[in-house]
């Protein structure tokens, strides 16, 4: 008796949770496939004939007026890829060796350094962005990929350093020591021996860093201009006043959420292990 009650309770709670988590996504997904009449219909329609028009409007445009806008949106997507990809790449190049050095060398204050990295995650972004805004204008880095990639380090480097550091702690030192006795310098130890072992950790860090960089709004909102605007800012531009173009907005939102959704579905384990490593350990 108790068992059945318990099972029913679980099932109810579980379903409620799933509905809560999934319904906004499902609703907007549905909206992105509705034509204009269905979108503004009240009571809201759950059954309708789907159309790909919104996605077409967002990505390709539906005539000479919107074609330019669609080209702009495609550019926003490309910009996000360049900035986030570049930021992660730079963070890996800078962060992995740093994490290695921090965990292997008992430099006084290496823990302090690591904590400094972590503290960046807790700081309000504008504390750095506002000064950078003025600085970038002076050195002509405003609205540039390099500028944005550098600015995004504030987000990506702490993630990389912390997660990789944790994974490094689990690597037994004996392999490294053996290699060192064989005459390998630290760089080669890192590149040839350690890195392959912590590949999952690096992957986790890279994926997490990429997604948080992609999802970021403030950096692009302030430091990007017409040429480098990322897709999150692009969506903000489009919502404007009173959303008249619900369908367009829904499709654009879905597209912007694609990296996150792909990662959630296929690369899940990296996310979870990365978060656990970076925070819990």
């Amino acid at each position: 008796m108790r068992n059945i009650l318990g099972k029913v309770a679980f099932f109810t709670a579980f379903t409620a949770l799933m509905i809560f988590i999934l319904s906004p996504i499902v609703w907007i997904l549905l909206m992105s496939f509705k034509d204009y009449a269905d979108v503004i219909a009240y009571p809201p329609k759950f059954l309708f004939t789907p159309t790909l028009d919104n996605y077409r409007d967002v990505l390709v445009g539906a005539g000479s007026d919107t074609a330019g806008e669609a080209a702009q949106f495609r550019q926003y997507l490309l910009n996000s890829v360049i900035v986030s990809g570049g930021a992660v790449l730079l963070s890996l190049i800078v962060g992995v060796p740093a994490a290695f050095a921090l965990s292997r060398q008992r430099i006084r204050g290496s823990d302090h350094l690591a904590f400094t990295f972590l503290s960046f995650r807790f700081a309000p972004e504008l504390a750095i962005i506002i000064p950078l805004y003025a600085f970038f204008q002076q050195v002509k880095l405003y609205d540039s990929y390099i500028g944005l990639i550098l600015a995004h380090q504030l987000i990506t480097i702490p993630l990389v350093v912390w997660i990789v550091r944790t994974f490094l702690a689990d690597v037994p030192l004996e392999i490294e020591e053996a290699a060192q006795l064989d005459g390998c310098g630290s760089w080669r130890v890192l590149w040839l021996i350690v890195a392959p072992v912590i590949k999952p950790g690096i992957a986790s860090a890279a994926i997490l860093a990429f997604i948080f960089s992609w999802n970021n709004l403030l950096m692009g909102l302030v430091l990007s201009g017409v040429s480098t605007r990322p897709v999150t800012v692009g969506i903000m531009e489009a919502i404007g006043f009173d959303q008249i173009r619900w369908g367009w907005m829904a499709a654009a939102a879905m597209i912007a959420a694609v990296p996150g959704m792909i990662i959630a579905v296929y690369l899940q384990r990296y996310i979870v292990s990365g978060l656990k490593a970076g925070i819990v350990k």
Partner: protein
Amino acid sequence: MLIARQVDSPRHSTSHRRQKRSFVFMLLPALLLIVGIMFFFLQGIARSFTNEKSYIRNPTFVGFDNYVALFSDSTFLVGLGATMLYVLLVLMLQIPLALSIALLLDKTSFMRRIGRNLIVLPLLIPPIVAGLMWKTMMQPSAGVLNFILSSIGLPGGSWLTDPATSLLSVVLIDTWAFTSFSTLIILAGLQSLPKSLREAATVDGAGWWQTFRHISLPLLMPYVVLVALFRVADSLKQFDLIWPVTRGGPLNSTRLLHVQGYEEAFRFSSPAMAMAIIFVLWIIIYLASFLLLRLWRRTVNAVD
């Protein structure tokens, strides 16, 4: 936590020196980055002590004037209150919720595994998208949320359009987007509990709740405090969920400090005042993190 390990080679051998040099080079770019970030941060703080605005040709040092002006400005004070209230609501809502969901999804089973996989989804969607999704659904007259509520007999709400309910509505969106983060941490904590606790439905004949409250929960405290640490900091500096959704909300009801800082800098072109607001926010976050970290250490020691 991580303890740096000692490398077993003689202190000043060439290979050791070479190694040390390599490590320095490995750290150098990261160190430069840290120095750079701190430089800009401190420069920003310095600016907050000037009267810099877009139309002031030669900004001058004004000491604490900006800060004094802030604390006599009603908009700032309302925003400060809203920020604190936001954090409080987030903690009160999300910690029990995360605990419950973690308990629900703990243990292995097919459904639970699916659940654990799916709850990550809101976390990975750009917050602005999450905000827009909910803004659309929360539309009072045409939105699907009120429609569903009314079809099951519950009253609809004004959600984001009424100053009285707007902050709570944003907290709801925040809960949707970020509770899975807290849940994952607590799940990790649950997994670290001794096997005996996890498997036994009861201990010594006491009910499950008793066991949980007196034994499991204290063991979980470090993780709960960790969750609180992250949620408090993130809530204090919330921007992405507010700016595209309410722009500071009907009548300043959601004008959190980070949002005010943005407006001050980019709508009113007063970078000095903006940095003053941001510095105040930073101090609040610093204090809160400091206290929570201390609490965390205490709970960790209590566990051991």
